């Protein structure tokens, strides 16, 4: 049995908890609390420690999904959760360009200190004013070889596709090394 640890990160209200809840086959361990800061304008509850979900992709391959809190003040949890991760998913709210700068900062935080395979996932593509992935790539100044995918995190099938894509990316980068 092979276990792969993946971390799901992104700015506040990017859809991290929803992403994990859509796919996990166990009851997601989540730590949501009523938001009392400016986050409460976006959503009622916010993650303060982590989300944990699990999904068996094949008979001998299990993914452990760890979702991070979005707010900067919980960045110590980003450090703790990223220990031992094999791949990273960065979720972006495609409808809120004001969060793109924060998203770049988060990518830097996770990749600065160790080279980690990651993909960028443009969530909320079902909303009318959503930005296209290629426009988001330009805005985030992502290199051409970074994969960027559209997604609706509520949709189990799409989430599954994203996870497989990250898995391929991990394998590709492992071969290159």
């Amino acid at each position: 049995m092979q276990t792969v640890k993946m971390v799901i990160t992104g700015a506040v209200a990017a859809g991290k908890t929803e992403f994990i809840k859509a796919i996990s086959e166990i009851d997601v361990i989540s730590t949501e609390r009523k938001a009392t800061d400016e986050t409460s304008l976006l959503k009622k509850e916010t993650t303060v420690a982590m989300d944990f979900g699990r999904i068996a992709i094949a008979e001998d391959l299990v993914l452990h999904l760890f979702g991070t809190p979005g707010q900067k003040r919980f960045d110590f949890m980003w450090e703790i959760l990223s220990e031992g991760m094999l791949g990273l998913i960065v979720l972006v709210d495609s409808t809120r360009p004001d969060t793109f700068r924060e998203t770049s900062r988060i990518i830097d935080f996770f990749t600065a200190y160790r080279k980690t395979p990651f993909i960028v996932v443009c969530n909320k593509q079902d909303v009318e004013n959503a930005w296209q992935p290629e426009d988001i790539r330009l805005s985030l100044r992502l290199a051409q070889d970074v994969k960027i995918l559209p997604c609706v995190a509520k949709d189990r099938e799409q989430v599954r596709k994203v996870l497989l894509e990250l898995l391929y990316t991990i394998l590709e980068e492992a071969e290159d090394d």
Partner: protein
Amino acid sequence: MFVGNRQLAMKSELLRLQAVSSDIEAAAVITLDGLILTSTLPDSAEEDRVSAMSAALLSLAERISLELGRGYLEQVFIRGVGGDVLLMAVGEQAVLTVMSKREAKLGMLIYYMRRSAKELTTYFN
């Protein structure tokens, strides 16, 4: 942050708590999503860290307590080589975090904290 009467009242409760036990080095009241309400910590950078960490720890501890059939969480206790950290729920809205010296008498500390936590709940209604 806006300092209202409520914050002043909570702050004086913390100072009272520190006055009864000289082993308490610092105390803070924090919202469940990790924002400081008031504290006796010396600087605000320190306040932000302590508050976010308290919220993360408390929420995880609560999940564990519930999942393992221990019911709603009342306290979290951490012992380091250099001293203790205690967290106690203040009603359903906040957490009281106390940092104490290693020599502190745990039973007395919990007793004082409980009294303060009860007092503090009155500011949340």
